[in-house]
């Protein structure tokens, strides 16, 4: 039995619904948007995914912590979520890579958790609300104050401070980091690419002359709030550099292209989202976490729908009809989730490396120089 067994806690939603449970991890009180995910494995990856910055994450799978927590690296440098709500906590995990249990990890990261909650009924409530704020209260702490994160500015919280480079390959990819999961970089480097990872709020355009492709990553918040960044992406798109967007990056790219984005009736928050490539008709299982969707009925002329979701028929990807510009709503880098669409990294790198050698290159560099000079 854990020593925190008797310490009860609450999840208080802003519609005044209260879920009782037991507190674990840190005894801080926190507030944030309450979201859920239905993945059955991958809590380490989920908790460290910067897309969840500022949010309280609810897991529907009822046994959490079974295989403990390994040593880093994770999907980012630290736990990103505000808090964690689960049904059952394993206090005696077992795995050859496990260093400590989930409770210890959350405690050391000052993140509170709540277990003993009927997360199925909670999820039913959350899905109907779309987004709802809530706070975790632990009896051990002062029940009045809850830390929350200003969501309109959440992107600035996940941006790094400096540009990082990794990999040694010939094909060089600029990753515009809006809270990128490390596995995006790993996926590129593993395939022989050299990655320049630049925080979105630094002058990443200055690297354009030296790269063969641009990748817009996942990230937290409402993409429609990132108006300045959308503008910058729009400028870059015209250069003809191969560009690929993932999740938040897909939304940015679509908005930059002139498409619109709407809030979904039910968000896609799982690792079992079926998508279909409209060109090949092939279907893939994907990992997703989003509540906004690109309206594929209103795509700009030069763009076409690429993937759709087989469950709700919503848009899952777009591509430019002539230029090497495309993006997907799902996560080809998985982590957690299925690797079915990892080939998109191969495809992206193939295009980037081929164009580098093509006659377009000189034209492109001219255009790039023009842009940088003016």
């Amino acid at each position: 039995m854990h020593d925190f067994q008797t310490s009860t806690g609450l999840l208080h939603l802003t519609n005044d619904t209260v879920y009782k449970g037991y507190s674990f991890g840190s005894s801080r009180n926190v507030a944030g948007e309450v979201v859920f995910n239905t993945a059955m494995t991958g809590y380490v990856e989920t908790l460290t995914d910067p897309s969840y910055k500022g949010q309280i994450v609810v897991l529907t799978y009822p046994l959490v912590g079974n295989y403990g927590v390994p040593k880093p690296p994770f999907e980012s440098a630290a736990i990103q979520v505000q808090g964690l709500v689960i049904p059952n906590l394993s206090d005696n995990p077992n795995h050859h890579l496990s260093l400590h249990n989930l409770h210890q990890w959350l405690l050391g990261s000052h993140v509170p958790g709540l277990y003993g909650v009927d997360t199925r009924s909670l999820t039913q409530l959350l899905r109907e609300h779309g987004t709802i704020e809530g706070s975790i209260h632990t009896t051990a702490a002062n029940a009045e104050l809850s830390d929350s994160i200003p969501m309109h500015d959440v992107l600035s919280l996940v941006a790094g401070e400096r540009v990082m480079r990794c990999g040694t390959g010939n094909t060089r990819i600029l990753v515009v980091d809006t809270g990128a999961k490390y596995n995006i970089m790993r996926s590129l480097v593993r395939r022989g690419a050299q990655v320049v990872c630049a925080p979105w709020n630094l002058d990443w355009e200055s690297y354009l002359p030296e790269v063969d492709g641009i990748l817009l990553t996942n990230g937290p918040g409402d993409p429609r709030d990132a108006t300045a960044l959308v503008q910058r992406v729009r400028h870059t798109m015209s250069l003809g550099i191969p560009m690929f967007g993932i999740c938040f990056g897909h939304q940015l790219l679509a908005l930059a292209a002139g498409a619109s984005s709407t809030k979904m009736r039910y968000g896609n928050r799982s690792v079992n989202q079926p998508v279909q490539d409209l060109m090949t008709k092939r279907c893939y299982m994907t990992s997703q976490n989003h509540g906004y969707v690109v309206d594929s009925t209103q795509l700009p002329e030069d763009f076409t729908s690429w993937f759709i979701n087989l469950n709700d028929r919503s848009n899952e990807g777009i591509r430019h009809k002539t230029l090497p510009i495309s993006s997907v709503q799902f996560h080809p880098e998985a982590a957690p989730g299925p690797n079915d669409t990892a080939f998109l990294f191969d495809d992206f790198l193939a295009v980037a490396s081929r164009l580098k050698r093509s006659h377009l290159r000189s034209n492109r560099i001219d255009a790039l120089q023009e842009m940088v000079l003016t």
Partner: protein
Amino acid sequence: MKRVLVLGSGALQIGQAGEFDYSGSQALKVLREEGIASVLINPNIATIQTDQGLADKVYFLPVEPQFVEEVLKLENCDAVLLSFGGQSALNCGLALEEAGVFARLGVRVLGTPVSTIRDTEDRARFVERLREINVDTARSMAVSSVEDAVRAAGIIGYPVMLRCGFSLGGKGSSIVRTEQECRDVASSALSGAPQILVEECLSGWKEIEYEVVRDAADNCITVCNMENVDPMGIHTGESIVVAPSQTLDDTEYQLLRDVAIKTIRHLGIIGECNIQYALDPHSRAYRVIEVNARLSRSSALASKATGYPLAYVAAKIALGYDLPDIPNNITQVTTAFFEPALDYIVCKIPRWDIGKFLHADDKIGSEMKSVGEVMAIGRSFPEALQKALRMLDIGAAGLESHRYNFSDIDDELRRPTPKRIFAVAQALHKGYTVEHIHALSRIDPFFLYEIASVVALEHTLEDSGLKLDTLSSELMRTLKRKGFSDKQIGHKLHSHVDAVREKRKALGVRPYLKQIDTLAAEFPAKTNFLYSTYHADADDIQAPTRPSVLVLGSGCYRIGSSVEFDWCAVTAVQTARKLGYETLVINCNPETVSTDYDVCDRLIFEELTLERVLDVIEQQKPSGVIVSMGGQTPNNIAIQLANAGVPILGTSAESIDMAEDRHKFSALLDELGIGQPKWKEATGINDIGKTVASLGGFPVLIRPSYVLSGAAMGVAYTKSEAEAFLKQASTLSQEHPVVLSKFEENAQEIELDAVGSGGQLVAWVVSEHVEQAGVHSGDATLMVPPQSLSVAQIMRIREIAEKLARRLKIEGPFNIQLLLRDDVIKVIELNLRASRSFPFLSKATGVNLAQEATRVLLGVKSTQDYVANWMHLPYVVVKAPQFSFGRIKGADPRLGVEMASTGEVACFGKSCEEALLKAYMATGFKRPRNGIFVSVENGDAKLLYRDIATFFGMGFGIFSAGQTATELRQAGFSVTEIASANQLRELFQAKSIDWVISVPHGTLSTPNRLGYHCRRLAADFGVSLTLNIHTAQRLAKALVLVPNSAITIAPWSHYLPAPILDERAELTV
């Protein structure tokens, strides 16, 4: 494609059970949906798939190449489905393909191509195919001689695993540690297979399975993964299994998923398959163990565990559909290209009946011995585990650490028997550390810690002087969340279970019903698949608004209760549905059709314990509850349910009690002037002589007063036997007194199956046993219409039934077992529920007893006038038992009052002999060509040669031993006398013996005798084995009278008058 043949799996046997009724039924539904005519071959008459209304034509014939070929020709089929009838159907299909039959007849094999099936079945080819894509398999070498096996083992390094290719249920696979063991096992394995595999031993690695679906357009998904709690070394069919995996991190989960998809694409499977892995607990190393290119036990489990209709989808794919084009019938919002997200944990536990076999080795390992399984759903491992243990119906109220006494608990943990899980709990209770138990059992510490949390709570209940009155809601909730039953809590707190229930409800602690929606509530989905959990604070679903009927299913399959009771339950549901009721089912067996998503309106996958059934009833408030259509398991709680005020449909609880209680029943028979064998309650071992004398001497039948399938029953011929049985019976059942009754020798056994309404007989069928009384009715060969009874006798039997029906006001199904000797009829037993023979008799005669019974239960007055038309049927139907002795190493194959068969078949024929021969062929009996061995210990051998001397003159060798040899020789036959077990073994190896008739005397067997060896060798070598003199007599006669050319190949509709079938069809679709 116009006409598709579907191969069924035949009788239930160890390694191949009811799951194929589920998969075959789904395939037939798909064919019907597509407007394609279907033909089914399956001699298993108790299945739903052989019901009228699923297949267009049904053939009750052996699933053997020669029969299948004839049916293909007769029906002009242009395609065949091989993957819905288990290994039997697959093997039969492979044989037909090899013989060029499909090519010759222009029959297309749908789904996975035969070449791919061969790649997965031939281990050497399999390893090679996987090597092509750098997928790791266990290091393995195919050998065909003992010397090569020894050499291969030397190269790979001991311990090694020896396996047979083409096997179901891992038959003939063992771990060997020394060269001598290797020689012994290899020689035995090679006697039954041309090739064996010597493999790297991965004992102790995690055992993981994925269910994979791929369509012809190369879309591929994994529907579910599963983890064995018992790691590698224990066959997955023998393991406690959870879904999804619990100890794999996301990287491992995805790694194995990726390998699964890559492998299945490379092999070119089209449809459903299962891939098994070993995963090193200390690294990311894995090995693919095998791929089953067909629906399997695991796929049935996965389908029920996730709510994904695997068999349905596999059939659609076989007909050419792609996954994204198939709507998901369960959620009605997604397509079949979907991987379920679970928000619960599923725990499967096998059910064993090894104790029913004399001299059986009760160790479990790499071969299957279990006869059924249960599946429990919960939101914590302890909740699911404890539920599952109760579902097994072995008397456990949960994971009780003191349930068994282990003489050597370390050995039990190291070399498990079915009781290991209880040994784990006991060891923890004794203070063993998790590390220590892990070292002995190799069970992952994750699971052991979870079990430890249950044992810790048990300690809490034991040590702290707790009282029920003062139990906090906090502790009560924690106990229930860890899966404790009210009974368990009551035991520990010395309180009655009813008091615990009351207290619990007063504390506001109750389980909630949750939906299995395949997507963890991510978005709304319509599903009717429910379970209950204490890890919740809201129900997903409220009580139905329409009038509703709850049907209690039969629970796990075991010897004595299997698919026949699922048929009864499903028929009850279909009938109630037809009558406009909202139908609810509670059952916990993933191998059943009653737990299919499309059978009832609400499926509650739950325990059939009184506690849980009451929980469900309190929440769902059904208008009526049917307890008499699921065999003994629901019948056992009927009286308590009635006492709790539940609206039980049918015969009253008082009447049920009167039939079950030996004293009351006996008095009732006397009152009605119905004959019965003399009986007496045992007063003690010392008085046994007196008791027996008062019954008129030996032999006597000894049993506890409440029994099912002859548990702890025995016939004693001597005082020492009687003492032994008495001891056994009283340890098994302390609650019920032990009863001794006169065992009537040379008596014919008869059954009457019937439906009563308002105390009147509305339908009734009499059938006759081939074997005389003393053979359990489940092991007997049944004939309908009766072959030797006179009309007058049948009418007297009817009169008895009418008397009982009237007196007990029987409302619904019932069954009477009777004895006939010297024209005197006696009643042995009355069951106020549907019996095992309901499906057989319904299909044989066209009088659907289960349907009629349900209509009566629901208050529909029978409009039909059931004359006993079965008395004049122009054909005979014979039901034969299927034994699985080959699976239970060391067990003495013999018949007695304890049931031993695992399944049954039934075939139609112009004559009794033809029907009997076909039925026996469907259980694996082969016409002898080389030689027979005869040994009849009680001197009845003359029954064989007196009437049918021609049989012995059919040209095969006759081997015998002892008294029988002398007798046969005196009767003028030329006999080779066998003196030793070794001599026998050589004859078996040389295939000189292909039929063994061995009739042992008495009920206690001695393993060293020649008779034992002979029966055992027959079982091990898969040679036809007959254990009863009357069966042998009938079979011999049939062999003489019915040459192969005289065997009719005809569909069910050929025998049964069309109007009767049509009437039924209307009601069962």
